């Protein structure tokens, strides 16, 4: 996955001309992993987004990490409010993948 991202960035003469949201645009149709404020993470297939990075996600898994452990909630399709997003990870293996 990291190699793919490097290719996307490297396909331009100047890598800095790839705007952050252009990268997200290239993730449409793929799984994406959103790390939110407040110990929550969301993984889903990115269907679209707007200027605020509000995102429509499909086949969603919502992970909540608490002192007791990790709770998982499955959802069909959601509109995620962009204001709570801290980071986006293209590829979207979720917290399990990151820990492995």
């Amino acid at each position: 996955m990291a190699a793919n991202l490097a290719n996307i960035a490297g396909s331009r003469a100047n890598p800095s001309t790839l705007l952050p949201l252009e990268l997200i645009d290239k993730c449409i149709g793929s799984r994406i992993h959103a790390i939110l404020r407040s110990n929550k993470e969301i993984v889903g297939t990115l269907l679209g987004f707007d200027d605020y990075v509000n995102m429509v996600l499909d086949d969603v898994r919502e992970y909540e990490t608490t002192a007791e452990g990790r709770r998982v909630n499955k959802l069909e399709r959601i509109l995620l409010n962009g204001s709570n997003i801290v980071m986006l990870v293209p590829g979207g293996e979720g917290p399990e993948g990151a820990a492995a």
Partner: protein
Amino acid sequence: MAAPPRTNPSDFLKELAGRPVVVKLNSGVDYRGLLSCLDGYMNIALEQTEEYVNGQLKKKYGDAFIRGNNVLYISGSRTRK
């Protein structure tokens, strides 16, 4: 497998109008009800609203206005209780 068509937030919201939805707030509280309307701040008006705290029904409201800054996500709900 055919890729699903691009659906931006405004497209998705058009699909949801008048339908049963789940609105989850940052606090973890869920609201289930019929989506009356919504604006650019994600302020939401719901009808026949039910408030769920930790999955348990706590309260019902005829109509409810939810201030958008509290909203984590909005989801369509097939399983209307």
